[in-house]
Structure formats: structure tokens, C-alpha cells
């Protein structure tokens, strides 16, 4: 008879009891540690998202009884020029904000991590500072920078002899969408700068010393040593940035409210206005747009995985 098959006998053996007790305690600890968060995830994230899938099949204004319309909302979505216009704006922002943040954060992080400046700690605080401000604060700040009458930008240009009068950067369709980029980059770069600094600090200095001996410049060291070694982190950063740019619209809501003439409207804002805006609310159609956003984000994730796989190195 094996040790484990005789419970009466095993009860008399202290080692077995402790082992069982330890296993039980371990399982209980895992349960207590994970269940609350998992339950919160189910209640506050998964359940609403699944409900949103259901809402996307309805015509519902939140007040009257919902009417099941099947895939009509998705059909309307495909024909809605406002959706495609908003998607274009999302792609413009994704194509500019993401590489700008990554590049700026990488360069700043490389300089701080490798140049050994005297006030590195201070620089870290300064670069990270925009990240502690709320989106509202950042947007209001930049709204004043772009103001035509009293804005910092026009005043700065005048200092350099460029007088464009009271030009409202956020009020013209040609410049508004591009004016969204600097506050987005300014607000996000600090966070990724800190992540990259910490990642770069784990790279052995011997690699750089060897490269210096070989005559490698800073540019070569950055792109041939540093970037490959922290590629997994860069990949995650790119993914988070893309997701954030696609989903986020708070800064646009405050800076331009989607204007002028819809030239800065993005999918998230369009969806928000359909659900909560000044016209008739249509939670069903807004949810359908949300589903489109979900599909786009999944596709973005798969694209990143496809094009950045096997690009990292180890040391």
C-alpha cells in the first residue's frame, strides 16, 4: 500500500500532512489573490464588452425599448463617410504620434542612460513631468499655446521674425489635425522615456566598450546594440501607443471638439458623440463602431507581432 493511498496511516505521518497543508495554503493564497481582481475584470471589463456586442445588434436610444436590427448597424457603418473620415484621422495620428514618441523617448533615454550627465536625475524628473499631468491639463495648456491672440506659439514665431498675425492653429482645417500631434507626443514621451532608461540600464557596459573600441558612433551603438537588445520592450511600447492613439479622444474633445468642420474627429469621439452627443442617442450604432475599433486594434496587434517577431537579441 502506497503512502498516499492510506489516509489513516498518512494522518499519522507529519511530513505528508505538511505537504498537503502547504499545497492547500498555496492554492488558497492563489485563489484569494486572483479572484477579486479576476472578478473585477469580469464585472467591469469583460461583461460590459460582451454587452456592447449585444447592443451593436440593436437600435436603442437608451430610453425606449430596444429594437433588434441584426447587422443593420454594421451595414450603415460601412456606408457612413464620417466613420471613414474619422478612421483616416486615426491613421494620421497613429502614423505620426507613435514613431515620434518612440524616437524621442529612445534618444532621450539613450542620452540619459549612456552619457552620464551631471543632472541626470533632474532630467528624468523634467522629462517625466508631463506624464503626471492629466489629459485635461495638457489639453488646456496647449489650447493656450495655440491661441491666436495670446498664444505662446505665435509669440515665439514673432521672436524669430515670423509674424502670421492672430492665426488660430486649432481653428483652421489645414492645421488643426497636425496641431493635435505635439500635445499627444509631449504627454506620452515621458512615460516611455522612463521605461527605456530602465531597460537600457540592464545592458552590460562591456558591449558598448567593445563597440567603442571598434569605432562605433553613437548612432550605430543606439540602433545596432541598444535597440535590438530592448526590442521586446519597444514592441510593447509601440503596441500600447497604437492602442492609446486609436482609442483615445479626450485631448481632441477638449482642444477642438472634433472640429473645425470635423477635421480632427476620430473614431472614439464620433462614437462618443453618437452615444452621448447633442443629437438622438443611438447606443446600438455607437456599439457597432466600438466593434469596428476592436477589430482594428486586434489587427494592429497582429500586424505588430508579424513585423517585429524575431527582431530581438539577447545578451
Amino acid at each position, binding site marked *: 500500500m502506497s503512502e498516499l493511498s492510506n489516509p489513516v496511516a498518512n494522518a499519522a505521518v507529519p511530513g505528508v500532512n505538511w505537504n498537503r497543508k502547504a499545497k*492547500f495554503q498555496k492554492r*488558497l493564497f492563489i*485563489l*484569494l489573490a486572483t*479572484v*477579486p481582481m479576476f*472578478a*473585477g475584470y*469580469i*464585472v467591469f471589463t469583460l*461583461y460590459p464588452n460582451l454587452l456592447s456586442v449585444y447592443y451593436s445588434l440593436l*437600435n436603442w*436610444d*437608451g*430610453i*425606449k425599448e430596444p429594437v433588434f436590427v441584426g447587422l443593420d448597424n454594421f451595414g*450603415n457603418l460601412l456606408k*457612413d463617410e*464620417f466613420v471613414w473620415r474619422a478612421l483616416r484621422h486615426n491613421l494620421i495620428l497613429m502614423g505620426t504620434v507613435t514613431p515620434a514618441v518612440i524616437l524621442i523617448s529612445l534618444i532621450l533615454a539613450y542620452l540619459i542612460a549612456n552619457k552620464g550627465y551631471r543632472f541626470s536625475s533632474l532630467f528624468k524628473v523634467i522629462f517625466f513631468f508631463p506624464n503626471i499631468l492629466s489629459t485635461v491639463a495638457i489639453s488646456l495648456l496647449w*489650447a493656450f499655446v*495655440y*491661441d*491666436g*491672440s495670446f498664444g505662446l506659439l505665435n509669440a515665439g514665431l514673432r521672436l524669430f521674425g515670423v509674424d502670421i*498675425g*492672430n*492665426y*488660430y*492653429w*486649432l*481653428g*483652421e*482645417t489645414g492645421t*488643426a489635425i497636425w496641431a493635435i500631434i505635439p500635445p499627444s507626443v509631449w504627454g506620452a514621451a515621458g512615460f516611455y522615456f522612463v521605461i527605456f532608461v530602465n531597460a537600457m540600464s540592464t545592458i552590460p557596459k562591456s558591449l558598448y566598450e567593445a563597440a567603442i573600441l571598434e569605432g562605433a558612433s553613437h548612432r550605430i551603438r543606439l540602433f545596432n546594440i541598444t535597440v535590438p537588445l530592448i526590442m521586446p520592450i519597444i514592441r510593447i511600447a509601440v503596441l500600447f501607443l497604437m492602442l492609446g492613439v486609436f482609442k483615445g479622444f479626450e485631448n481632441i474633445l477638449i482642444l*477642438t*471638439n472634433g*472640429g*473645425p*468642420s*470635423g477635421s480632427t474627429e476620430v473614431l472614439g469621439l464620433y462614437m462618443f*458623440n*453618437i452615444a*452621448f*452627443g*447633442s*443629437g*438622438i*442617442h*443611438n447606443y446600438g*450604432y455607437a456599439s457597432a463602431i466600438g466593434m469596428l475599433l476592436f477589430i482594428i486594434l486586434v489587427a494592429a496587434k497582429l500586424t505588430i507581432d508579424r513585423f517585429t517577431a524575431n527582431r530581438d537579441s539577447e545578451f
Partner: protein
Amino acid sequence: MFQPARRWSAALICLIIVSMLAACTGNKENGSGSPEARATTSASASTEPSASSEASESDVYPENGLPKDEKVTLKFAYWENGSGREWIDYAIDTFTKRFPNVSFDTTYSPKIDTIIGTKISAGNDEDMFDIFSTLLPGGGPAMATSLAEAGKLEPQDDLWDHKAFDNEGKTLKEVQSGIYEGRTLILDKMYALPYGQSVTGLFYNKTLFEQNGWNQNPKTWGEFTELVDKIKAAGLIPISYPGKYPVYLGFTFGISQMFELAEINGNLEKFNDDYRNYKAPFYASPESVSLYDKVYELAKKKAFPDGVAALTHTQSQMQLLQGQAAMASTGEWVQNEMKDSIPDGFKWGFMLAPMGDNPESTKYYQIFAGGGHFIWANKPDLNKKWAKEFLAWLWNLDVQQLYAEKAGGLPIRSDFMNDAALVDKLQDAPKAVLEYMANNSVKGNSEARNKSLTDTNAEKARKLMEESVNEIASGKKEPLPTLQQAEDLLVKAIAAQQ
């Protein structure tokens, strides 16, 4: 042997607590708790005032026959805006002193529409406010129409027959100062008794106009454009408005001006029917085309600021106060809202942009449903009765006086308006509005409709026009093609709804 069982029990208890929390999010209250109990116990006293005949007279209030011994708490959502909250707090305070069994659970917020919208969407009648601001999500009348169609709002037409608390013998309709005709109706019923008037149009600095000898009361479109030319020649922006919220241009060049044009064209009745009942044409109607042509005409004269699309309402109103703009399209609340920024010597003036060529024609202005509060229909009868009593209380002269003095609003009682001493207590901007009304033939108009269009094409049409306003006002886009495009979308929406 019992130890593992205890620990598993602890784990299960955690799971149960979480499950209960999850279940609570889907819990639909049907008023089965205390509100119904209150309704049940008070039903005999509240549904029929005469039903309390068996009770002694001291058990009910003489003003309204409602019971003194039934405690009621009214959940009240107040929009904290440029009017402040001093006047409403005074009204609540005096009301609860007079009727001590009634208490208020008040939520104040500048973003009360978001809070109201969330509670409406939650579908929990017990949690919903009893009385709430007419500022609903979106700010427009669309949601109110939907709520009325769904039977969620309590009609308040009976309040016109309510006796004034401080003018015995006279009903509210008998003491109103002319707002009855312009009251907001949805589906032919009134759902929010106004407590004040909100009038929008062009506000200007009288001092500036007097110094330059500009016409402060243009009576025709020709005189108005002449004024714009003179202001432009003086190097000022003739008309400022916050382009970030294009609805502000509609305060001066909006639905009411279309009604004015319809009256000029002899087409008022048809236009009114078409507008209220969502019948085509609307965007491409002669009135709408004429209005937007006028805006475009002003745009060609550079009447509106450069970069207007970027202006917030604060920036736009500051342009007026700082003398960069001669006029601002806004409402009478502007003085109270900007009171900390008004320079010395600034005197408020008001005018409406006349649409026609006849100096004697009636000028239309927008009356907003913002002057009033809704009552949630699915509440206990006693709550709704007390809610109505409170809304009638807001008509008391002392409340109206404070509303005029502290909130910068326009009262709605004729005995107030006919008392020079009381009128003198109004702030200058509302006084300017009254002065204009006294010197011109004017008529208030509501933008409410009798039905809602839920088809997405209706929303697309509205959005198309909203986005085009700034471009038309900047002279970058001619109005007619956009109006036609919007009309095509509206026709599709109307057809889909039928």
C-alpha cells in the same frame, strides 16, 4: 479536519460577495422598496386632496392639501451654470421652512447632463432624480422628446392653474409675463414649467456703440449689414461667437430666425407644422436657405473672427469685453458668467438680428427649455405632487428677485416686470433685453419638436450642418449644396421612420 473546511468557506464567502456585487449591477428596482411604501401609506392622502377629508385640517397644508406628516425627500439635480446656486438654495431653504416634512437631496454640477444621462440609462426609477434640469446629454431637445415619447416625463400643464403662493387668488398663468405662448411644448404638452426666461441674441457694449455713433437698434436686414460694415471699417470684429460650439451662432441665426422669415414670407403656419412634426423640406426650405445665405453674406464681409472654429465661449465673450469684437452671440447669462472680467465703463446692450426689410416686422428670439425642470414620471404620486409644489414655489417674488439679482436671469412674473423698483434690481444684460423688447415687436419661440427621428440619417444631416456652420461663417463654403445634402439625408430618415 475542520480547518480546510473553514478555509474553503472563507474562499467561498469571497466568491459569494463578488457575485453579489455583480448581481447588484443588474438589479432592476421597481420601486418596491420604501418609495412604494411611502406611496402606499400616502396614497390616500395624496391622490385626491379631498380624500383626506377624514383627516383633520391640521394634518394637511392649506395651500395644497398635502399631508404634513408624510416625510418626503426629493432628489434634485441642479445645473450649476453661470446663474450660480445662491437663488436655488434660497428657494430650497424657504420651501423646506414652510413645508418641513419635505427635504431635498440636491446634486449640483456644471456637468449635470452627464449625471442625469447616466441615471436615465441605468433605468433605476428609485435612484433617478425626482426633479432634474432640462439640460440633458447633448444639450438639445432630442433627448427630451425621446423621454416624453417614452412617457418618462411628468406633464406640468396643470401648474399654470396653480395658485401663486404669494399672490392669493391669481394663478401662475395669470401672473406670467408673456412667456406662456412661447413655452416649450413636446407632443403638445409642457414638461418643464419655466422659472425664468433665457433670451439669446447679440450682446454689445453700449459705451462703444455710443462713442462711435453706431446704430443700436437696426430694424431691417439692410440696417444690420450697414452696421456690420461700419464696425468692420473701424477695425473691430463685428460678431464673435464660440466656433467650438457652433450652436452659439444659432442663438442669433437659428431656428427662431427661420420662423421670423416664415412669417415674413406668409408661410408661418406651414413652416411651424413642418418643423414641429419633422416634415420635409427643412434644411432646403426657403427659410433655411435664406437664413444661411444671410450668414454667408456676413461671412463675405468678414463679420466673424478669423479662426472662429477654435474659440471657446469664454474666449469669444472675452473678445467682446476686451473691445476686440463689437457684438457677441450669446445669452443674457453672459453678464453673470463673466462678472469677474467686465471692465469698468462697460454697459450692456442687446439686439436681435432682423431678418426682413420691414422695420415693423416681428423679431423672433429663442426661448430655451433650459428655464425649467423636468419631473420623472415613474415616481410616487406624493413625490411628484411635492415636486410640482416646489416648481410653483420658484415663482415666488422673493425667489424671482434673487434669481434676477444673483443669477442674472429674467423673471417671468408680470407683477415683477411692472414694478420699477424690482426691475431696477435686474442685472444690466437682462435689463438690456427688456429694453429691446419694449422698443420692438418681439416673439419668443421654442426649438422643441413633437417627435424624434431615430434613423441614423437624421443624425448625419444634423452633424453635417453643425460641421458646416463655421465654414459657411468663414466664407469658405457656400450654404446651398450642404443644405441640399442635409435635406436628402433628412428625407431618407423620414422615409425610414414611416
